[in-house]
């Protein structure tokens, strides 16, 4: 690619304008990103009305605070 600055833009555009099939590596990457958001985001950040606990990321931040 001639201009490296276009790469992140292209990645963002391809993530937004999704044309990939299931069971492709791009699909797997999207699934990983979604699962990371769902499981790692502390429920308190989202004001989750039903979730209990802080999730893995909240636990890690609390651990850092303690140290």
């Amino acid at each position: 690619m001639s201009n490296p600055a276009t790469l992140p833009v292209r990645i963002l555009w391809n993530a937004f304008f999704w044309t990939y099939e299931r069971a492709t590596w791009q699909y797997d990457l999207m699934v990983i990103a979604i699962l990371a958001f769902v499981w790692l985001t502390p429920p308190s950040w989202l004001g989750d009305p039903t979730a209990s606990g802080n999730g893995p990321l909240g636990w890690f931040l609390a651990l850092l605070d303690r140290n």
Partner: protein
Amino acid sequence: MTFTGLIGRICMFPLRLIINTCVALRIHPNILTFVGLLINVAAAFELARGHFIRGGVIIVVANIFDFIDGKVAIELHAVSAFGGFWDSVIDRFSDIALFLGLIYLYSHLGRTDYAMITAIAMMFAIMTSYTRARAESLIKKCKVGFMERPERIVLFMIGAFTNRMAAVMWVIGVLSVFTVADRIIYTYRELRETEEAVA
């Protein structure tokens, strides 16, 4: 093989057994579709009561019916235009039922913010199906955008089993907005190309 492809292959083993049983019993696929809806309504009741694990288990059972109806139709040579139409309509009812269960729960908890987020996610989930159906009456195919029904259902299961439904509603909502936008843009481009080719 990709990670998601491997999961799909593993899940096919028990599903194959259920499909073979339904074919042996000659259960009509349209009945399987309707039973799936009834089970989804039961799942929605559990979600509305805040029983996420129970709701998740029922969603899994409901979607087994949803998944196998098409396969049973093929094996019984009962594929019909009405069957496809019936399946699509029932799928929308099933989707709406699950969202309504959550809207009831969040309203009951006094969380109008999440009731609203869930309502918006529901609106765009329905529009995802509508935009494709309407587009495919004008162009050959409109299968773009990430957040289709299988993804929504798996996310519902993940949210229910791990008690992270709020995050799941955000994901479904935001990605459904993108999916609807993708389909509008794609249809616009395809129609413009056709018009230019004619002119």
